[in-house]
């Protein structure tokens, strides 16, 4: 490939940042720059593009043309291509930006918990959104995955680690801007792990008890016994246990994990890869974050088991870019596991090879879609691929790949601990095991909850102390922005895959968001519509344009304004929802209109502007 660069030079600091990153990634400096940097060897570095861009954003605070050009030269990537990748992600800035940036969540949970007050404070102290000058600026953000402690902020800091800030307040934000002192991150909230501790916990069994920074403490709490058992069973034995367990994926699609791993294990093409999908960006979801922050070694162990079972020697954990604490804990856990021989050339002395690489997303919900995630790791735009072929045959780098959600992988440890048939005895016939729920809104104790499948919504709410005192439920959003609304007549709905499906709803990522009489459902819907528009990758017409038209029509309906063309906007929305769910490429488009449709069906949005 003959690169033509525009001749903008990096600053010494930018060059040093990129050099340091590449050195740490094992890319050697070429004696004569580009000339030697061609051919297969050089192109094989494309997958380092995203982390290289991260290194610049982290250290310098933005990505200049000279810096991008230097990255292109070192990695042999055409600059237009690299620009296309960098401009895909919300956390990267391609224009100068102050070193401190507050990303303020104004999404479905935080909007009701004072997000606009915080925004008013920031506006007052720092001026309008996204200024290029000054010591700090602020930006609105979609859900930051800290919803149980809303309202939430993410402080992006050039030259220093990023910080989550939740619960935040106008006062705390004002104080922080004055003194520059960042508090230590707060722990996630899982009320069942507080005293008196719920004895039924499985996935959360170690949370709050184990030291997340200490491999020995993890082993002291039973850690790595599942891997030991896995090795004793061998890949086929693991496949049998998983098939018996009837464990289904928790990432949203409820696909049986046994079938997925088996397909990869048997795929003739080599090498195989495993990926843990830790991109958790569905508004209202924070379960994977708490698991990773509080019990990171368990994820390392589970991914290692995935590698062993599918014949992969390399695994990736793709974590969303807005999770600094979980990222830090996992980096540390991987380093400890390597140092102690739990990853590497002879894992646990059991004579198999496996290592894990941690990759950070950069602000793109769509990168949670499995094939978009793979493109993102490979250094391309996070655009989903058309399926078939499925990742079990053609996945990461075109090779057979098993990709699973964090919670799914935690369940694998349980399956191995108890045995597949015993695991299948938990929950219901078609939804086995336990499920994590992210409970927020008008509820006494918001937080992460674990319940056996089959428990009803009412039982979940009771566990959380019931609705906020004095509040009455108007509606419940199940499954997040891609989810559906239900109401109090559904309180006895068992929270299982089959029962929610029968009720035309879906558990999705486990979001249960309670809206009381004081909640503005129109505002929630408008936020969801804006979210879908912002997060569409833009590849296919139904979703790229459909999400825009959906937001416009919804705005008119909510404002009680007539469509200037005399169209019935409710019918227009129905047409849009249909083409998005029928003709899009991926799940984002399929579900982009689901929440709006369900709100209309439930009469939660009374169209005042319709002509009908």
């Amino acid at each position, binding site marked *: 490939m003959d690169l*033509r660069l*525009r001749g903008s030079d990096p600053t010494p600091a930018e060059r040093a940042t990129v050099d340091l990153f590449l050195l740490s990634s094992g890319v050697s400096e070429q004696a004569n720059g580009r000339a030697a940097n061609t051919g297969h060897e050089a192109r094989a570095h494309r997958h380092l593009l995203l982390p290289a861009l991260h290194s610049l954003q982290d250290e310098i605070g933005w990505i200049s043309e000279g810096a991008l050009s230097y990255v292109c030269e070192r990695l042999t990537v055409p600059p237009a291509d690299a620009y*296309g990748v960098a401009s895909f992600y919300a956390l990267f800035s391609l224009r100068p930006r102050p070193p401190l940036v507050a990303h303020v969540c104004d999404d479905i949970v935080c909007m009701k918990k004072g997000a606009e007050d915080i925004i008013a404070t920031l506006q007052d102290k720092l001026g309008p959104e996204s200024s290029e000058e000054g010591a700090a600026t602020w*930006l609105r953000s979609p859900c930051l995955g800290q919803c149980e402690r809303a309202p939430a902020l993410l402080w992006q800091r050039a030259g220093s680690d990023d910080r989550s800030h939740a619960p935040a307040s106008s006062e705390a934000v004002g104080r922080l801007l004055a003194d520059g002192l960042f508090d230590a991150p707060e722990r996630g909230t899982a009320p069942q792990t507080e005293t008196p501790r719920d004895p039924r916990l499985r996935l959360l069994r170690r949370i709050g008890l184990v030291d997340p920074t200490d491999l020995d403490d993890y082993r002291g709490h039973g850690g790595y016994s599942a891997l030991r058992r896995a090795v004793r069973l061998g890949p086929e034995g693991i496949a049998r246990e998983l098939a018996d367990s009837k464990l289904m994926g928790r990432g949203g699609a409820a696909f049986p994990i046994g079938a997925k791993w088996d397909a990869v294990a048997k795929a003739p093409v080599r090498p195989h890869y495993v990926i843990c999908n830790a991109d958790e960006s569905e508004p209202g979801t924070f379960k994977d974050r708490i698991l990773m922050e509080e019990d990171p070694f368990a994820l390392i162990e589970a991914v290692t088991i995935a590698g062993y079972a599918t014949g992969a020697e390399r695994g990736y954990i793709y974590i969303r870019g807005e999770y600094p604490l979980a990222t830090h804990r996992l980096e540390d856990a991987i380093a400890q596991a390597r140092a102690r021989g739990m990853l590497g050339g002879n894992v646990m002395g059991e004579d198999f090879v496996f290592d894990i690489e941690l990759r950070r997303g950069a602000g793109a919900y769509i990168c949670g879609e499995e094939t978009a995630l793979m493109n993102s790791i490979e250094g391309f735009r996070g655009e989903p691929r058309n399926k078939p072929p499925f990742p079990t045959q053609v996945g990461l780098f075109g090779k057979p790949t098993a990709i699973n959600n964090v919670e799914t992988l935690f369940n694998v440890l349980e399956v191995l601990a108890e045995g597949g048939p015993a695991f299948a005895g938990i929950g219901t016939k078609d939804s086995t095991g336990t499920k994590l729920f992210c409970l927020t809104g008008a509820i006494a104790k918001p937080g992460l909850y674990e319940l056996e499948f089959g428990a009803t919504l009412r039982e979940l709410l009771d566990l959380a102390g019931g609705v906020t005192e004095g509040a009455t439920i108007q509606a419940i959003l199940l499954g997040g922005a891609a989810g559906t609304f239900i109401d109090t007549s559904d309180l006895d709905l068992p929270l299982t895959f089959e029962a929610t499906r029968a009720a035309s709803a879906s558990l999705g990522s486990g979001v249960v968001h309670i809206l009381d009489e004081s909640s503005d459902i129109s505002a929630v819907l408008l936020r969801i519509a804006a979210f879908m528009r912002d997060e569409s990758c833009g590849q296919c017409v139904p979703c790229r344009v459909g999400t825009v038209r959906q937001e416009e029509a919804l*705005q008119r309906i909510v404002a009680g304004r007539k469509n200037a063309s005399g169209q019935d906007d409710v019918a227009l929305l129905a047409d849009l929802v249909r083409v998005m769910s029928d003709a899009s490429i991926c799940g984002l488009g399929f579900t982009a209109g689901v929440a709006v449709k369900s709100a209309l069906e439930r009469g939660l949005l009374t169209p005042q502007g319709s002509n009908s």
Partner: protein
Amino acid sequence: MSRAARFKLGVIKRTVELTIDGVAVEVPEGATILDACNKLGIVTPTLCYLSTLTPVNACRVCVVEVEKARVLAPACSRKVEPGMVVHTDSERVRHSRRMVFELLSSSVDMSLVSGEVKGWIDSYGSDAARYGPPAPPAKVGERDARHAGHHHAVDGSVAETVAQPVKIDNDLYVRDYSRCILCYKCVEACGEDAQNTFAIAVAGRGFDARIATEFDAPLTDSACVYCGNCIGVCPTGALMPKSEYDLRQQGRWDEARQTVTQTVCSFCGVGCNLDLTVQDNAIVRVDSPLEHSVTHGHLCIKGRFGFQHVQNLPD
């Protein structure tokens, strides 16, 4: 799929039998539903598909209904499977095709698409006006500056479009992205599928995604070598030779006065076929036939733009 794989000849292939609109059809293994439709003479609308480019299946106008599948499938890239039952004219298919054309025409200037595409837009009953009056065009550079994951607040009184000023930064061709449907064809032609120059790529995200050079630099500063292969594949007139653009601006472009003459490029020994569009005894545009085995429609700067020497015209 690599080009080599697509043009491989001589391999004996098994055939696959499927049913389309109630008619049984047999096609070679590895063929697409579109191939099978073509064999039956069923016309399928396409926008982002071109036989010489890797399918990106992005526009979704070619969708068909495959029995037992939850969602519609893009005919241009979905491989046939034995026993597949396909419907190309069901209500579901017609709805999606109508809506895709409608969403595009409501946001993009489609006035220069081919007569065939215009026919489809009409026959599927697309009504671009349903979404209200179009929003005013973006100012120079505004769309290029948009940040992923953020958009300005809308109130629904006008319909967003991609309208923006034309980019004229060189003497050979113009880029009028108000006409861009984001079919990815130019990017593919500039990249791996033909030119291997990689001067342009898709940048940004969602509705603000756009075709761009690095940091939206003018073409003259980019890697572009002016082969014009992007022009050759653009289905909407977003990319256009300056010669054609100027005539159109002056109101002098007149297809009734044009002839197309086929010849062979005289610059080198490769032997690329050229289609010269001539109006009033002057060459106004050069293309190469898609079916030509040497070029597959692609040329270089000399063949595409080097025609001044054959016509000694007063200014």
